């Protein structure tokens, strides 16, 4: 069993992202001091800076020594070095089973992504958790730093069979409630649901100050739709079958995909979530590397 789900920790993939720091765009609170900065200044750990007092500031943080020296009111601000919590939310609905040609399925690609991210996060002494979902949230693993937890996540991903429809709105609401403290929520899904549902779920997460990354994972064929002969499309997730000449439909289909992607992107922006479309033909490491580098750039 252990060897089976170890496969998701592809050494080549991990090697590619080894030298990158997993950092959050915003500082989250944590149990362990680390590289990550906390937004909660105040009760201590490390002095950050002075700033002038403005009415409404808590007088507990007033620096009286500075007042004595300068006759001005300064507020002392502190930063706390802390770890961060990340929850990886992986879509395991039936649509994730789709693959074209020699490409891996979307679900397998998502599993690789989730495993790699979780391993990397834990290697940096941060806490990584996992939630699998379709219509509901299953097998939610709370963020933890232990290797046991990583193994549990991997086993959970491995055992989960793709089935059912997607209801991302309900699922994200559930994730928001379960995550508790401020976390980095990494959503890996094809998002094949109503955009309104996505928007609603993201809003719930944003309301709880979670930082959100959305990987919109699709197969290359789903983005390109380059079929060349009469085809019967067998619907997944309970959709009806359709016999059609795909060449005649391609333009309209691509417009639909484009519209959906644009709407999803808008929904993400509205909740300050990062939106990254991914293609299962893209090398996994390259995709993560590009994304994480972008995150680091934003940090400064």
């Amino acid at each position: 069993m252990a060897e089976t789900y170890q496969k998701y920790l592809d050494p080549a993939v991990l090697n590619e992202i080894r030298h990158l720091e997993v950092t959050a765009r915003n500082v989250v609170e944590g149990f362990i001091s680390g590289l990550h900065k906390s937004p909660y200044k105040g009760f201590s750990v490390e002095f950050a800076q002075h700033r002038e007092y403005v009415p409404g500031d808590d007088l507990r943080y007033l620096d009286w020594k500075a007042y004595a020296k300068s006759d001005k009111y300064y507020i002392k601000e502190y930063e706390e070095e802390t770890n961060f919590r990340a929850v990886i939310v992986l879509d395991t609905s039936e649509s994730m089973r789709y693959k074209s040609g020699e490409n891996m399925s979307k679900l397998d690609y998502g599993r690789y992504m989730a495993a790699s991210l979780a391993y990397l996060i834990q290697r940096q002494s941060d806490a990584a958790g996992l939630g699998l979902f379709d219509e509901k949230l299953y097998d939610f693993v709370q963020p933890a730093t232990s290797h046991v937890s990583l193994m549990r996540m991997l086993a959970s991903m491995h055992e989960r069979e793709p089935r059912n429809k997607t209801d991302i709105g309900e699922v994200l609401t559930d994730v928001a409630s379960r995550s508790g403290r401020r976390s980095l929520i990494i959503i890996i899904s094809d998002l094949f649901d109503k955009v309104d549902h996505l928007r609603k779920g993201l809003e719930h997460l944003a309301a709880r100050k979670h930082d959100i990354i959305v990987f919109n994972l699709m197969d290359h064929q789903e983005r390109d739709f380059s079929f060349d002969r009469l085809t019967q499309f067998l619907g997944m997730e309970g959709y009806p079958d359709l016999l059609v000449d795909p060449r005649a439909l391609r333009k309209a289909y691509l417009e639909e995909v484009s519209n959906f992607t644009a709407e999803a992107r808008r929904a993400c922006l509205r909740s300050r979530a990062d939106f990254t479309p991914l293609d299962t033909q893209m090398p996994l490491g390259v995709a993560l590397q590009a994304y994480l580098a972008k995150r680091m750039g934003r940090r400064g």
Partner: protein
Amino acid sequence: MPTWLIWTLGLGVPLAAAAVPVVIHLINLTRYRRVEWAAMEFLLNAYRRTRKRMQLESIIMLLLRVAAVILLAAALFPMGCERIKDWAQDSAGLGRLSLSTDAPLHLVLVFDDSASMAYANEGQTSFERGRQYALTLVESMRPGRDRVSIVRLSDVYVPPRAGGVRTTEAEAAKSTQRRVSQLASLDLDSARDNLAATTVAAVDTNVLGALREAARAIEGTPEQDAVGLVVISDFLESGWRELRKDGSVHKDFREVMDRITGRLQKAGTTAVFYDAGFDGTQNVAISRLECTDRIIGNGMEAKVLVGVDLFASGIKLEPKTVRLKYRIDGGSERPFSGAITLTPNRSGDPVELRLSPRDLALKPDEEKTGASRNIEVFTDEADALKADNSRSLVIHIVPDIPILVVNGVPHPNPSLDETFYLETALGISSSRSESSRGGETETRITPNRIISMRPESLTSVESFLDYRLVILCNVATLSEATIGKLEEFVAAGFGLLVFDGDQVDFQRWNQDLYKKGAGLLPVKLREPGGSSDPAAQGFGLVNRSATHPVVRLFSDRAEDLEILTGPKAVRNWRNVDLPTGAEADPLRPAEVLVGLNTTEAAPFLVERVFGRGRVMYCATTAGERWNDLWRSNGLPLFLYLELAHYLTSNEARFSNLAVGEPWRRALRASDVAPRFMVRDPAGTQGELLPTSEQGLKLLEYGGTAIPGVYTVTALDRTDSGDTRRKWQERFAVNLEARESNVVRLAGEDNKDVEAVVREALDGIPLNFQRAGTELGEGALAGADTGGGLWVWLAAFGVAFLMMETLWSAVITKPED
């Protein structure tokens, strides 16, 4: 073809074909691949948005496929379609076309077999394309019922018997003019055989003549029979220009086509013009090859003028560079020109080829008989029309030219002797010049060998045929016998030059030699004119014929003309009357070449053809008795040399002929042999039988249908009974230069061929078809479809089906 089959093909095939796309469509609906699809919502949304448009497109596509297949089927079986049209017209009470019945069909094929049809493109000639079309038409006709008449545009008349030995006057006339031939009412097998045996002729086109023949054949078709006309040609300017709307015989063309169309319309058919030619033509042609001297004496040099032209049209209208080479008697090739850049459709200056005496020298065994040399000039590379990439010229090399000079007034004092200066001038044999290697080279100027004789000695001459020219100088009278021999001599094709003088008994001459226009003398003599005073001012000469070979020498430049017209040296002359009324022969008129600058413009030099030869009369003396010409600027030297050259080379004009022109040669006593053979350029050998005309033995050959060099050999018998060559002579037959012009028929606005033909036949229904778009027999019955509309539709159908099939590639098995 049986009616039921016509109906089956005409209606059944298109209908069956129409069902094919529908069946394919239905089959395709059951053959597809299956794919599980995740992004179904996008797909369903897209489908909902585009469903109506897709269905409409699908229906349109299906209809187009059906239409394309129907068009294709209809194009393959247009005859059936026409039957359906007839049937529809019958139903509407419009009458029934005769062709749709089972009436016998008389197909008249006007077939262009002119030399230009040999133009080749990508391995196929226009001729082959045309013949293939004609054979296809014949194949589509019903054996035993239908018949074919073939009118060939460019046949050379070859007289019957081996080699075309005998040429009567009528036959000779047929040979010399371009002639069409008609093979009337052939059964289909014979028509097929005749078409297969037809080859490209070497003469140009006589379109109007052929159409007249065709009209006769069509009008001779019984009323109850159907008749059709198909004209197959390459439609070049050279043959069709005169027929254009602005052409010289356009009216005649319309007239004959009106006659043809009247009969065709009764049969319900339309004239078909089939264009077997190619667009974008280019042809380099050696269009002219002539020697400035017709007869060359052994040791003389020869100057040959070579005309080379580039004819081009369409996209090939660009200059071309060629080099010229030559060879003598099939020997080694020798270049003689540098790179010559030819401008399309514009004649340049001729290229000069100088042949040295060494090139042309007689071999030891030829020194007595003379020989003929074949000068073949050719381009360094062959092009699309190979026949004119080379041209042959035969030059006769003679040991000498015997000229008999009859001196009417011999005198020891040269200035008083009648022929002293003349004999001296004509006898100039050679000139010496410094050679480039040092030393002197000797070049012979004339081959003349002068034999002088007194008038009284003429009676002892048995025949003048051993001479090539006889010159009478101030001879008082001639005996009847001598005159008879002279008439025979000239009629055989030789020359007579007559100088007048004070000794001439003009009344006897008029009686014996003029003979009221029937004799040798071209003019009627009167009393002499001018002054007998040696100190009196003379009169000058006036050139009356700019193009005649004798005076052309003086016509090129003003200073040259001054040599002729400058001297005022003619003191006395004979007043003469040109033949008029009953004495004049319109076919052989007397031509004044040079006149005197007197108020009456008295004739000075007059020529007339007598038999096959020529007589030249000069109104003054050969010596100084009546003029001071010899004391002037050398005029008589040039003039009399030109006269002698002209009159002695008369016979040599048969050395270089156009295709169809008969060859002939007078036989002197020494030329007669037991057997004469002729070999044509193809190597076919036949025996020539001598004929006789007014007592003169002749060899004649009318079978000059193939360009190239022909060889005539006289064979003698030895004592042992074997044969040996007595003498041999060659003559060249060349392609008509007009056929080298491969420029396509075009109007002033550079219209295409079809537009020009339609413009010329405005109002006359016709089908115009181009090679590669053949329709077969059905074309005859078609109305004026504007140039093979069916073919275009069929091409569209095929193109559509191919593109659509490539694009869709719909026939596949379901995939898992």
